[in-house]
């Protein structure tokens, strides 16, 4: 990821069946979205191990979002039930690590909700812009240097 302070590193995990399709719909509907985020598709939101998110913050992410199917709609029946437990606990952990809770977000986006995807991304990117670069970026540089 970029260590350039002007450019934000925003990572969005989307599940294959709902959120990715929702993002796709937002794209083909030509909805306006900021360009600061990068998307990673996983088969299910439950595939997103909390370690991935910690790893992202370690490597300079300024904000991380996980998007999956609405509760009850999971392609694998109960994947997102696990996700929401893990992510709720991870949120507590990240807060203890001193990160602003706004830097991490869990959202439910269905395949038909292109509009919602665009809106959530806009909100999230604006929030991260207000917060600026993650404090872990500088810490990592110091540690790598010495």
């Amino acid at each position, binding site marked *: 990821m970029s260590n350039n302070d002007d450019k934000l590193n925003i990572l969005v995990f989307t599940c294959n069946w709902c959120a990715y399709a929702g993002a796709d719909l937002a794209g083909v509907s030509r909805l306006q979205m900021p360009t600061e985020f990068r998307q990673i598709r996983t088969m299910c939101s439950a595939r997103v191990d909390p370690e991935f998110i*910690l790893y992202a913050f370690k490597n300079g992410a300024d904000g991380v979002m996980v998007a999956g199917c609405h*509760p*009850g709609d999971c392609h694998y029946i109960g994947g997102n039930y*696990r996700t929401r437990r893990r992510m*709720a*606990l*991870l949120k507590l*952990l990240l807060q203890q690590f001193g990160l*602003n809770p706004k830097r991490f977000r869990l959202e439910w986006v269905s395949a038909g909700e292109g509009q919602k995807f665009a809106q959530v991304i806009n909100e999230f990117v604006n929030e991260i812009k207000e917060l600026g670069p993650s*404090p872990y970026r500088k810490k990592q540089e110091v540690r790598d240097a010495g």
Partner: protein
Amino acid sequence: MPDKKKITLALKRGASCVGCDIAVVNFSEKLFELIEVADIVFSPTLLDVKYDDLIKMPDKSITIGLYHGAVRNSDNEEFAKIMREKCQILIAYGACAHLGGIPGLANVSNRAKIFETVYKKTFSTDNPEGIYPQTEWTDEKGHKLTLPEFYDEVYALDDVVDVDYYVPACPPTHVMNMQILNLIKGWVEGKLELPPKGSVIAEEKTLCDECPRNPGKGKKIKIDKLRLITEVEPDPEKCFLEQGILCLGPATRAGCGAPCIEANMPCRGCMGPTSRVMDQGGSMLSALASIFGVSENELELSEEDIEKFVSQMKDPLGCFYRFSLPKSLLHRVVQDK
């Protein structure tokens, strides 16, 4: 195989409680077997030696060096480097040298805050002038006194020097010591090869794998309520997680012989993560969150209900990273807007 019949051994401590020196004594009668193949040439706890004795030894003259304790001041770092120069094989012995250990929990704070608490705020401290430790001070007669510099962050041994092997646990147990003894003896006698550099001298599986309480494959664990070990009398045979008691077994390396479990205490994770995961806390977080039961009324639960549910877990950072914070992915706590 070493070039001599009898090897030499040195023990040096960093930011340590000296429990690891005592763990060496816990070789018990087998200590004599160790002494048969190895001369202990330097150990401030066990022998009458001075730091100068170590500094005067020729480089690489010690076969095996055991360094225990974390690195949290300039003295720890200096001697870690000296040990590296003097020893052919340097072993990070114990959880602190391996992962930062309990002293590593200081990474939730920083030097300024720690000094303020210790030298200003504590009830028994009377320090109206706010004097903090200085690294150098000269009295009126010109005598110079020095103190090591206290670092802002706690490091594990391999953050400051190259480390050959790791022996985890707080402190390494008798079972693990025997494994090291057999390895050293076999190597000196030319019967065994040393493991590849960077190996952790323990198992590759998680503690659950060797735990006598493991409920067995395919049996799902589901809990509704998390209980503190101080609040309940745990069943001495049932899996701790099944009883709702936090046990770090699923995220912790095996090889200790599970003495805590035998004493009816849950695992606290001193062996660190297995080599397959990046972060012990993240691994334990997944495991714990996944056993918070899913019931039929799942759809009626709001995100707030889920938050309430998981917030039964008090202090996730302290519990999940009790021994591994400096070697976790994020290393330390930061200040954000």
